[in-house]
């Protein structure tokens, strides 16, 4: 599954990092980084992150 974040609406709340720490993280400069291609074992967490994102910026497909 592919993971995409619309950085034009992401506000760096980090709720995705809380929900799916293996998929999303902050780099040292405070920017959001994520795994763009995830395997099946990470899908449930990524979906939880997508649901939890306050800005609904995460697109899975």
């Amino acid at each position: 599954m592919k993971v995409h974040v619309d950085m034009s609406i992401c506000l760096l709340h980090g709720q995705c990092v809380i929900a799916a720490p293996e998929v999303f993280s902050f780099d040292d400069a405070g920017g959001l980084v994520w795994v763009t291609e995830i395997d099946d074992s990470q899908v449930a967490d990524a979906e939880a992150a997508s649901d939890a994102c306050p800005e609904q910026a995460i697109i899975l497909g």
Partner: protein
Amino acid sequence: MMQDADTADTLPFLDVANPAFSIRSQAVLDARDASWCARTPYGLAVLRYDDVQKLLRHPKLRQGSYRWPAHNGVTGVFARWWEAMLLSQEGDTHARLRRMANPAFSPKLIGSLIPKFQALANQLIDKFADKGECDFIADFTEPYATGVICDLLGLPFERWRELADIAAEMGLALGVTFKQDLPTIEAATKRIFAFAEDLVETRRAAPTEDFIGMLIKANEDKAQLSDQELLDMIVLAIFGGIDTTRNQIGLAMATFIENPEQWKLLGEQPELARAAVEEVMRVRPTVTWVTREAVEDFTYNDTPIAKGTTVHLFSQSATSDPKIFPNPGFDITAERKPHFGFGGGTHHCLGHFIARGDMTEALKLLAQRLKNPRFNGEVEWLPDSGNTGAIKMPIAFDAA
């Protein structure tokens, strides 16, 4: 040695402890022009958009109200809950609790409640529409905000008064008379926990797929969400969801009464209701500031901030800044940068999908059914700072 930022005398001073202090006063506007932050009797106030935005997510700041009971020398059942609940937690414990609670607050689950919110709003409006007047707080926002929580918990609307009273009595803990009110607060806290226990017991016997059902499911793994944490979370949803929503819808009505052409527009174009909620929360957020505390010494904007310093992030002043919001007047059709009415960062409001959903439905129906609303007597307000709003708002209108 780190200089204590509270004593840096070049900064403007705002007396937020004075009951007459207003977050919308000229003093705040002048301070915002002069500096990114001001001194207050309890730490710093951050005034501008970019700084509030950055500091909401700053790794050197933690949520700042966790010490409130200790600060007042209070212990007991309320203090135990306050210090253990999600908002007071940081780091791994916060992340774990938030992860376990997320499914219960998901937009999908909340979407299924929208028809109930519409029915509730209509039922309340039906009671006073023909009279052409009401107390908008007692007759609408209070029963609506509490009724929404009843819907969320799967309880009949008839129990709203009971919940509203408990929440109001517990809410005394946030006021300056915390210590004097302690017996009332403790009794209300015990009642709310009995209430939550009852709810959990009933649903364990007859499982549901709703909010409580999702939390009970999370509680199957006790290491991730213990029995106590399950109850603490239910209590937080009740406590955190009622007054905020009541106040925010009241502030919406006051704002529209001052901008009648916008109300007319909303009545004609109900699809603007979602944007209207955002615009109201930009110009009149009920949570006018959120509080943080420095976990270690750090420097921000060349200002040294010592460990333990309280930092108030002034959402209200940040999102009314004409430098960031050209044409800052209330306009539900304008494209705006995001407001901070639900906070931001790791503690971003967990109930925002619910609040956004219920307020959108309420405004949509109100604008269609109450035409030309106007004040109809003295409005009674909470102080215009901290968590603000009206507690009495007589209005008159023309029924559609």
